[in-house]
């Protein structure tokens, strides 16, 4: 497991530099305009892109075939992908936290409450999204999954807009708050189901 994680991080060396540059840019942007939103958006995006990139490298070098010829059970390969996603997600949250704290204490543009919710939202959205796309990546590979991921990303917003157009009212703030309290539980279930699905896909795969 540790070996596989190290491999994923090392494989990203090249891309990592680009990611860091982007983050630095948005970090400066965030500080100078007192706007956490853009940085948060970027962090979520990058957290989703990183696993995708490792997948692309794995496929290109046929890593899975090789990994499975070593003392690495299939379960570990699947687990390591989730662990990698969680780790990048955590790193992303830590980054947002650093800038968020800076904004809360120095510019006082956002309240600590607002910051706290933003932080949780970053984690939540990222994890929710990852639990949807990781099984897709295992099933279809990067090439095909890419397009499906686009759909997964846009479908909810398109649906929301459509529903609003049809005159449907969104849930009231009370319900929303209740839902947000339940969301950690919901996320955990989602991740667990996602892992189980990925595992069963991967167990059937031939290399």
């Amino acid at each position, binding site marked *: 497991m540790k070996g596989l994680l190290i491999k994923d991080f*090392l494989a990203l060396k090249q891309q990592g530099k680009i990611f860091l540059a982007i983050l630095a840019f948005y970090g400066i942007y965030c500080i100078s305009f007192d706007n956490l939103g853009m940085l948060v958006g970027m962090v979520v995006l990058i957290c989703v892109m990183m696993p995708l990139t490792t997948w692309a490298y794995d496929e290109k*070098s*046929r890593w899975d075939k*090789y990994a499975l010829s*070593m*003392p690495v059970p299939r379960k570990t390969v699947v687990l390591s992908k989730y662990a990698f996603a969680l780790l990048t997600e955590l790193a992303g949250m830590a980054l947002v936290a650093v800038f968020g704290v800076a904004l809360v204490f120095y510019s006082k543009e956002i309240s600590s409450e607002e910051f706290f919710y933003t932080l949780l939202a970053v984690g939540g959205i990222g994890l929710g999204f990852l639990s949807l796309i990781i099984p897709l990546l295992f099933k279809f590979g990067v090439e095909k999954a890419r397009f499906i991921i686009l759909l997964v990303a846009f479908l909810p917003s398109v649906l929301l807009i459509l529903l609003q157009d049809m005159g449907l009212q969104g849930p009231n703030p009370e319900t929303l708050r209740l839902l947000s309290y339940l969301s950690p539980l919901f996320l955990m279930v989602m991740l667990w189901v996602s892992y189980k699905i990925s595992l069963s896909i991967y167990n059937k795969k031939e290399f």
Partner: protein
Amino acid sequence: MENVLEVRNLTKSYSDFRLNNVSFTLPKGCIMGLVGENGAGKSTTLKLILNLIRREEGEVKIFGMDNLTQEQSIKEKIGVVFDESSFPEHMHAKDISLVMRNIYKTWDQSLYEDYLGRFALPPQKKLKEYSRGMKMKLAIAVALAHRPQLLILDEATSGLDPMVRDEILDIFLEFIQEEDNSILISSHIISDLEKIADYITFIHKGEVLFSQPKDLLLEEYGILKCSHEELERLDKNKVIGYRKNQFGVEALIRKANFKDQRLIDPASIEDIMLYYSRGVRK
């Protein structure tokens, strides 16, 4: 003699290809060459041994252990090299040891560094700047550095120049000096196998045509030279394959069946393979 690898009746079907009842045995301390044309089923066999694909029937035992139920303990003790580099291109040799150290319990860092030095592989250079030969040598260094007892090599020498191939073959011979070590190597470069293999297993259209000690094979088969008329008089069931040219016929035969014939040349493994796969035009 103890067997390192026992393959029994392996069967696996694809829509356009079927590996049928493949069986062979690799005794400890030996090198077995798996030969056959492209698409004959060599890689499929190796993948089944490594449990990378699911078999329909059959059984594989490595070090006396079942390859499915004791998969992980077996894999601790084998080294595998595929025909292409399996590492992401941005990594370098030093990165790889960091990964492998955390995968194999028996990873020997100093042995790995020895191999890197010996193969003149720069540890800090990105893999994408390595030549094909260097990538292959790196893969072999990685496979050897956890001190495996069985090497499984899938076309590990193909696409390399003769010098590099020779260097690699020497390493295999060195590896086999340790009496517990064995090698299963698939290749379509027969001359390589002829140099190092003790056993030859010939797979043709998904079936094992023979699996024998190389020396016995060379002893058993011969190339009979005769005229076109003589060929007609021969018992066709005893001719494995033949090739006609303007001066006469060259036919692959078992020497035991033609004791009275004088004009029998020795057959190389390559001859045997070619006549078997091409020459069955009775």
